[in-house]
């Protein structure tokens, strides 16, 4: 199957490609008419490049002109790695991020973190490079690409309505709600250091209130990209706020990128009834980090209640680490409770769908360890 991997979709063929190496995700969408959109970013372990750029270049897309929009759904490390490189390469792309990130608290955090070198890059580090790239773009020449476009619930993010386009393509933000933005500001404020505090790396510990969930319409195809949006009892937050919005988009999604790696925290039964078609195509990226790597077996069973078409970009449990020299291996076994490699091969699930044809069947292809969850 891999010999067909690097082929370009036709003008009237929508594509959603979901990539995930174990921790991290990236989504590449063909919006018809050879125009593309990228949502989030992760790095290919072998090439050390953002997978979106690598893939698009291999299928012959000129990223400087054909990528119209790049969305960073939130600033957590697993969604933003390599985002600045994407934005730099996709020089015509409009940059979209959560409206919560316009807050001075976040920009202050960005400034503080950029002055420290840490063992690993963080999502905050990535943002300083993104902002530098945006500022370097001349507003006189390409004012619409300076941005960012600050996404918040119930606002359009992208409309491709050129008269020469044969297919309507629109992207709409479902979140964050106003209440979520307020909470996110509080969360970010908590990460700001005080005088005499050690210069540690900022590590997000709280729910993903800033996440931008997206509704994508390409011709007659609707796609729900759930980002890491979670489910809360409070109707002003998360998926409840989306469902109660009077301006939520009409139609039902045939394809859903399952929110937050299929976790129970992000499971809202009503979105499967109100926003998604029965037996949809569910795309999942694993999150191999943490005490309970996602999706768990319970998570998969829960999604299976709604569909039999679940595709995951890789093994949820990470992989076995390399064996160490004998005395070290013995010591490590005595000392650590769990140990695993969290980044594996860059799994890729691709769905292509012919637009404008009633009853058309999507084509699903799986690459590099991606698999159907049964």
């Amino acid at each position, binding site marked *: 199957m891999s010999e067909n991997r690097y082929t370009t979709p036709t003008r009237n063929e929508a594509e959603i490609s979901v990539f995930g190496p174990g921790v991290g995700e990236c989504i590449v969408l063909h919006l018809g008419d050879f125009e593309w959109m990228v949502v989030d970013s992760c790095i290919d372990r072998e090439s050390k490049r953002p997978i979106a750029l690598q893939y698009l270049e291999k299928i012959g897309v000129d990223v400087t002109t054909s990528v119209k929009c790049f969305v960073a759904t939130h600033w957590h490390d697993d969604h933003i790695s390599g985002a600045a490189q994407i934005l730099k390469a996709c020089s015509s792309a409009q940059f979209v991020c959560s409206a919560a990130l*316009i807050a001075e608290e976040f920009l202050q955090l960005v*400034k503080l973190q950029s002055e420290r070198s840490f063992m690993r890059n963080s999502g905050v580090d990535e943002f300083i490079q993104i902002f530098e790239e945006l500022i370097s773009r001349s507003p006189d020449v390409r004012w619409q690409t300076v941005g960012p476009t600050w996404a918040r619930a119930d606002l359009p993010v992208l409309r491709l309505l050129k008269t020469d386009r044969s297919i309507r393509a629109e992207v709409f933000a479902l979140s964050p709600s106003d209440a979520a933005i307020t909470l996110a500001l509080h969360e970010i404020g908590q990460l700001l250091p005080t005088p005499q505090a050690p210069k540690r790396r900022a590590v997000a510990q709280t729910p993903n209130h800033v996440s931008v969930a997206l509704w994508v319409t390409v011709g007659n195809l609707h796609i729900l990209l759930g980002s890491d949006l979670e489910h809360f009892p409070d109707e002003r937050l998360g998926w409840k706020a989306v469902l109660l919005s009077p301006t939520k988009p009409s139609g039902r999604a045939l394809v859903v990128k399952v929110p937050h790696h299929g976790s129970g925290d992000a499971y809202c039964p009503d979105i499967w009834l109100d926003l998604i078609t029965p037996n949809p195509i569910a795309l999942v990226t694993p999150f191999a980090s*943490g005490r309970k790597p996602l999706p768990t077996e319970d998570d998969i069973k829960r999604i299976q209640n709604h569909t039999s078409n679940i595709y995951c970009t890789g093994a949820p449990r990470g992989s076995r680490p390399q064996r160490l020299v004998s005395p070290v291996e013995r010591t490590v076994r005595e000392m650590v409770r769990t140990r695993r490699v969290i980044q594996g091969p860059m799994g890729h699930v691709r769905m292509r769908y012919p637009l404008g044809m009633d009853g058309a069947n999507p084509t699903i292809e799986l690459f590099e360890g991606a698999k159907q969850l049964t």
Partner: protein
Amino acid sequence: MESEIFSTKQFQEESGNIQSRVIDSGESGAPEGISPFPSGFLIAQNAESLGESFSELQAKETVTGSNGHSPLTVLNIPSQFVPTNRFQVLQKWEGEIIGISADECRAVVRNMTSPEAPEEEVTFSIEEISESDRVLAMPGAVFYWSVGYEDSLQGQRTRKSTIRFRRLPTWTKKELNKARQEAQSLRDLLVRK
């Protein structure tokens, strides 16, 4: 002529009839040619031949040995040269705490012995961290984890794992104020229309 190094005590006991005892350096971290002793001073015969290593130590005074041979120099020993058991590192990681609970740490570790190895995530008991370092164990904190053999001065070998946390510098009010001002300027640039 090779340098000969003695402990103060040894010098006092053996003055007038100096016995050379060249101690193996190497794992202790002392400059080549300088051997560690528990005492705060070293007596070095013909210390000039130590070259750069010698210059790293502070000469206290130079005396002439009662045997009438080469001058002896009394050197202050920086604390890092004070001998302890010898630790042979077999494996070293740099780690960063990504989560912590009452009894457990979760960390990402990078293999410093084989840098091409992929990052790993490990969990271990908080008890593995020394009491003095536990206050530093917070999300974002960086530590170094070494596994190896410790050879005691008495010649006994023990397999050992050590975790040491990096002492990070602290934020100053001035730095925080500067970041606040820069954030305001950045915001002005980003929201321009």
